[in-house]
């Protein structure tokens, strides 16, 4: 189509010269052309079969995606801290302990000499996991303000022993057995004063006067 002349001239972009290419089908007509088409298709089929053979050993792409996902999930980002961040700006020492979760109260850390969590709101029991922790400050340990839920993790000695004699001992777990209540230093706090040792399973009368 001839280019329009006038106010807004329009010239179609010209395509670059294209080198001659081999003819798709040589000068063949009718049956021979169809035969040539069939030969080309057979050749294409053989190429594709070879390519299929070569990719047979490949794993499905989805498997690679799964491997990447599994790896990322299993390995945490080294730049992201474990646990929740501490929101208490005054608590610096607690956060020095790995795994410290200052967001929650850490009952073991109240008077932990390893860390001063008085202003700490840490609830993580990992805060004072060290066996040297003398958070309880008992003679063996001081359970006056101890709120540990596990008697056996805070102190070296079993809780029921170290806490004996302390009224405010908050040990929730009774000792499994009290073999000798006479050595029990618990002050009876039973309201009716049955004069029974409050040792778990203990049925012996406490040696100490109950009132």
């Amino acid at each position, binding site marked *: 189509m001839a280019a329009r002349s006038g106010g807004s001239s329009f010239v*179609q972009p010209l395509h670059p010269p294209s*080198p001659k290419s*081999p003819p798709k089908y040589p000068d063949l007509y009718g049956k021979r052309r169809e035969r040539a088409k069939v030969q080309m298709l057979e050749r294409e089929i053989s190429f594709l079969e070879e390519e299929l053979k070569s990719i047979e050993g490949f794993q499905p792409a989805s498997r690679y995606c799964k491997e990447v996902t599994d790896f990322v999930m299993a390995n945490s980002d080294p730049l992201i801290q474990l646990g929740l961040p501490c929101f208490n700006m005054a608590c610096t020492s607690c956060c020095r302990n790995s795994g410290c979760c200052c967001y929650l109260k850490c009952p073991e850390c109240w008077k932990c000499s390893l860390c001063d969590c008085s202003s700490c709101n840490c609830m993580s029991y990992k805060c004072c996991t060290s066996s040297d922790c003398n958070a309880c400050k008992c003679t063996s340990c001081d359970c006056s303000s101890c709120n540990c839920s596990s008697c056996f993790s805070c102190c070296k000695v079993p809780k029921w022993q170290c806490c004996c004699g302390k009224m405010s001992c908050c040990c929730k777990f009774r000792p499994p057995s009290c073999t000798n209540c006479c050595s029990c230093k618990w002050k009876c706090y039973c309201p009716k004063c049955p004069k029974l040792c409050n040792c778990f399973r203990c049925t012996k009368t406490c040696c100490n006067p109950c009132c």
Partner: protein
Amino acid sequence: MEKKKVTVPLVCHGHSRPVVDLFYSPITPDGFFLISASKDSSPMLRNGETGDWIGTFEGHKGAIWSSCLDTKALRAASASADFSAKLWDALTGDELHSFEHKHIVRACAFSDDTHFLLTGGIEKILRIFDLNRLDEQPRQVDNSPGSIRTVAWLHSDQMILSSCTDTNGVRLWDLRSGKIVQTLETKSPVTSAEVSQDGRYITTADGSTVKFWDANHFGLVKSYDMPCNVESASLEPKRGNKFIAGGEDMWVHVFDFHTGEELGCNKGHHGPVHCVRFSPGGGSFASGSEDGTIRIWQTSPVTHDESDLLGSEPSGKVKAVADEVARKIESGLHIGGEGKTGDTDKATDA
């Protein structure tokens, strides 16, 4: 408004599978020619200047990994995955001889005097066939440490070089003694090795590095790191002032030989570039790609305005095209839509 420079390659269609090797003949009285090797098992011969298809060599039953022309472009050779290398008459397309091997043949090269054909492949054996005694057993040159990837002749056919698929470096044999006299050390397997037209340089591509070696003293002259893995590189044959490289980024990069500065980046291929070669006059270069096309780029690109691709091209060939187009406009025919086979590629940036 600044005019945008546009480089327009000649896009040669025809192969139905990736093009893996290209070879230009020297300039002959009939012009110069380009032969392409493709995984579609049919080497094709083209006019080196226009890219026009001349003929297809039919007979191989497997992918063609390498093809070449002799000095006068009278005969062609091809190396194939069907365990054979074939000798062809480049004028008629007839198969002259088939050299049987015991494994895939990856490379072939004519000697400068056209009397011998060098082949190499997975067998790890270099063979030299006497083309005047086709039925004789070839001379075998041993000690290739791995499957052979490239071969070339140098120093007036007194030496040959070869690189391997899985072993770094290029090894050079002296044919009188049959021994390796030099190894050019590289950090990766060499995928392309070209001896310059004047015989002064060996251009290699290994990994993402292009290296230039002195062909006489075998010292490393230049080494340039490319922006990506390159599979092929070629040095401009006349002035030696630039080189091209192509690889996995699908672009054909042009660099200054002396400084390594990138002079141009030719985009257009739709797949990794497997082979790049300068034409014997240096006025153009060709690239073969995974996309099955061969693109012929001008070394000194003609600058075109985006709205008028005819620009101010001084070359006679484009002027002739312009005259033809003008004639078509006058005769009222569509421009660019009739009789063209398949070239819908748009202009590329340089």
